[in-house]
C-alpha cells in the first residue's frame, strides 16, 4: 500500500512541477505528498542539520495528544445528556449520542478552516501550511456541545482569516487561532457561548446545567466534587472537562518534547499560588475561599495550560520568559474568574492577553541577559 502510494505520487509529480499540466495546483500536491511521506528535501549549500520532524509531524503529535480529551469529551456529552433527561443509557449509547453532537462540529471546523487555508495557499503561491491541523481540532474542543454549526463556521473563518492569514499565515500570528475563534464567538454571540443552558446537549429546562464555575461565581454550592472535576464528568466545553485526559495529552507532549513543560508547570503554579492568596484574603466570599486546587481542575484551566498556552507561535520564546508568561496566565485566570463578574471563565482572556505580551516579555528577558553578560565582562 505504502509502496503503491509512493509510486503514484512520483508518477504524478511532473504534472505539478513547473511547466506541468497542473502547475497551479502545485501547493495542493505538495500538501498531500508531504502529509503522506516525510519530504525528501535536502539543503543546497553549506552544512545544515535538518531535523526529520517537520511542521506536519509536530502538529500531528499535538493532534494525537488531543485524542484522549476528544474521546472523553464525546462520551461526556452523551453522558451529561442522558443524565439530564434522567434516562439510564449504555456506554455505547452515550458515546453514539456524543458522536452525533461533536463530530459535525469537528467536520465543519476542519472543512471551513482547511478550505480557507488551501485557498490562501493557492492564491499566494505558498506551500499549504499544516498549522490548521491542530486549530481544527482545538476549536471544537473549546466550544459548548450545543454550538450551532454555522457559528462554528463563522468563528473558524474569522480565526483563520483575521487571526492568522492577515498576519502572513502559520507562524506569523500574534494570537492563538483557536482562542481567536472562541473569543470572537464569545463576544459576537454571548447567548450561545455562556450561561447555564449551553453546556448540555438537549437539556430539559428543569435540569440545572450550570457549570462549576457558574455555581462558584454565584456563591452556590459547586454541585460536583473535586474527583468529578478531575475525571471530567461535569458539564462544560466539549474537551475541557477532564483534567485526567488532558494530563495524558500533556505527558505525550512532554515525552515528545513538543509542548513546553515550563509553560504548563508555571501556569498551574501561577493559578494555584493565586488561589492560595485568594484563600488568605477570602473573608466571607465563598468563591475566594474555594480551595486553591479546585481552580486547576474546573473550567478550561487544565486545557488552556496544556494545549493553548504552549502554542509555540504565540507563547514567549525565551526560556526564562516562558516561566513568567505561564505564571502570569495562571494568576490572571484566577483573578478574572473570582473578581470579574462579567466573565465566569478567565482562561481564554488570560492567555490572549499574555499572547499579546509575549514579545514584550521576550524583549526584556533578552535585555536582562545582555546586561548580565556585560556586567560579567566588566568584572574580568
Amino acid at each position, binding site marked *: 500500500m505504502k509502496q503503491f502510494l509512493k509510486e503514484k505520487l512520483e508518477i504524478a509529480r511532473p504534472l505539478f512541477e513547473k511547466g506541468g499540466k497542473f502547475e497551479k495546483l502545485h501547493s495542493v500536491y505538495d500538501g498531500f505528498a508531504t502529509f503522506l511521506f516525510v519530504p525528501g528535501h535536502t539543503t543546497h549549500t553549506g552544512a545544515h542539520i535538518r531535523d526529520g520532524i517537520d511542521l506536519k509531524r509536530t502538529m500531528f503529535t499535538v493532534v494525537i495528544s488531543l485524542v484522549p480529551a476528544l474521546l472523553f469529551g464525546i462520551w461526556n456529552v452523551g453522558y451529561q445528556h442522558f443524565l439530564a433527561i434522567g434516562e439510564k443509557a449504555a456506554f455505547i449509547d452515550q458515546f453514539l449520542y456524543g458522536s452525533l453532537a461533536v463530530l459535525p462540529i469537528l467536520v465543519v471546523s476542519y472543512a471551513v478552516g482547511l478550505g480557507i487555508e488551501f485557498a490562501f495557499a493557492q492564491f499566494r503561491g505558498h506551500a499549504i501550511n499544516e498549522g490548521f491541523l491542530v486549530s481544527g481540532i482545538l476549536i471544537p474542543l473549546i466550544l459548548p456541545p450545543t454550538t450551532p454549526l454555522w457559528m462554528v463556521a463563522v468563528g473558524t473563518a474569522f480565526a483563520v482569516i483575521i487571526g492568522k492569514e492577515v498576519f502572513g499565515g502559520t507562524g506569523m500570528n500574534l494570537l492563538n487561532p483557536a482562542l481567536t475563534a472562541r473569543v470572537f464567538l464569545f463576544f*459576537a454571540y454571548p447567548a450561545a457561548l455562556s450561561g447555564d443552558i449551553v453546556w448540555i446537549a438537549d437539556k430539559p429546562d428543569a435540569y440545572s446545567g450550570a457549570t462549576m464555575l457558574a455555581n462558584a461565581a454565584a456563591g452556590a454550592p459547586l454541585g460536583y466534587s473535586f474527583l468529578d472535576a478531575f475525571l471530567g464528568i461535569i458539564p462544560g466545553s466539549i474537551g475541557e472537562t477532564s483534567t485526567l485526559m488532558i494530563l495524558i495529552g500533556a505527558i505525550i507532549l512532554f515525552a515528545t518534547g513538543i509542548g513546553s513543560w515550563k509553560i504548563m508547570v508555571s501556569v498551574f503554579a501561577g493559578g494555584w499560588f493565586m488561589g492560595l492568596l485568594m484563600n488568605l484574603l477570602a473573608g466571607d466570599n465563598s468563591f475566594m475561599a474555594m480551595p486553591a486546587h479546585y481552580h486547576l481542575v474546573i473550567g478550561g484551566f487544565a486545557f488552556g495550560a496544556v494545549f493553548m498556552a504552549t502554542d509555540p507561535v504565540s507563547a514567549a520564546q525565551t526560556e526564562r520568559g516562558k516561566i513568567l508568561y505561564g505564571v502570569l496566565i495562571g494568576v490572571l485566570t484566577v483573578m478574572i474568574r473570582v473578581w470579574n463578574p462579567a466573565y465566569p471563565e478567565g482562561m481564554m482572556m488570560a492567555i490572549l492577553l499574555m499572547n499579546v505580551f509575549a514579545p514584550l516579555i521576550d524583549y526584556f528577558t533578552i535585555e536582562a541577559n545582555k546586561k548580565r553578560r556585560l556586567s560579567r565582562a566588566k568584572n574580568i
Partner: protein
Amino acid sequence: MSTSTIEKPAVKVSEPLFGKKQRKLISNPLDGDNPITVQVLGICSALAVTVQMKPALFMALGVMFVLTMSNLFISLMRNIIPSRVRIIVQLVVVSTFVILVDQIFKAYAYEVSKELSVFVNLIVTNCIIMGRLEAFAMGNKPWPSILDGIGNALGYGAILMVVAFIREILGSGSIFGFKVFNELGINYTGNGVMVLPVGASIVIGLVIWAQRARNGYKEEA
C-alpha cells in the same frame, strides 16, 4: 541714468473653476489619498460613530460642513494669521463651526444628536480638519481650499458609510434601521462583535487591506 526697468506686472492667469487640477482636489481624497485609509486620520470618530448608518451619515455631513467652511475662512485669513498663533486661530474657527453644527443637530435631529453625543463636539479635535487646515488652507487660495475641504470630507464620509453599512448589516441585520433580514423572513442573529468598537477596527482594517491590494502599497522605510 537709470537702467532699471519697470517690472511688468505678472499676467494673472485665471484658473478654470473646474479644471483638471481642481477635479483632482476632490477625487484624490476619495481614493489614493484617502484621509482614513491612507493617511490614517480621524480613526477615533470612525470607530465611534459607525455602529449604524444614520449617525454615520450625519457625522459625515457635519464634518463636511465644518471642514469646508473652516478651510474657506482660514484660507481667506491665511496671510494675516501670525504663524506663531496659527493653531489657536484655527481652533477658534473650527470650534465656531462645530458649535453651529451641534446646535443645528440638536434643533432638527435631536435623536441623532443624542446618539452622536460627544462626538460632534470632538470634531474640533478631528485630525483630518487640523491636517487639512495646516497642509492646505494655510497655503492655498479660497476656491481650491473649498474643493479640498469637500474632497476630504467626501473621502472621510465614504469610508464612514462603508464601515457603517458593514457593521449595521452584520451587527443588527438592518440598513438605516430597516430590518432587512426580518423583512426577507430570515431569522438573523446579530453579531455582537460588530456592535463593539473592535468590530469597527477590524472592518476598517479590512477596507484598508482591500484598498492597498488594489492600489499597491510600499512600506516606507
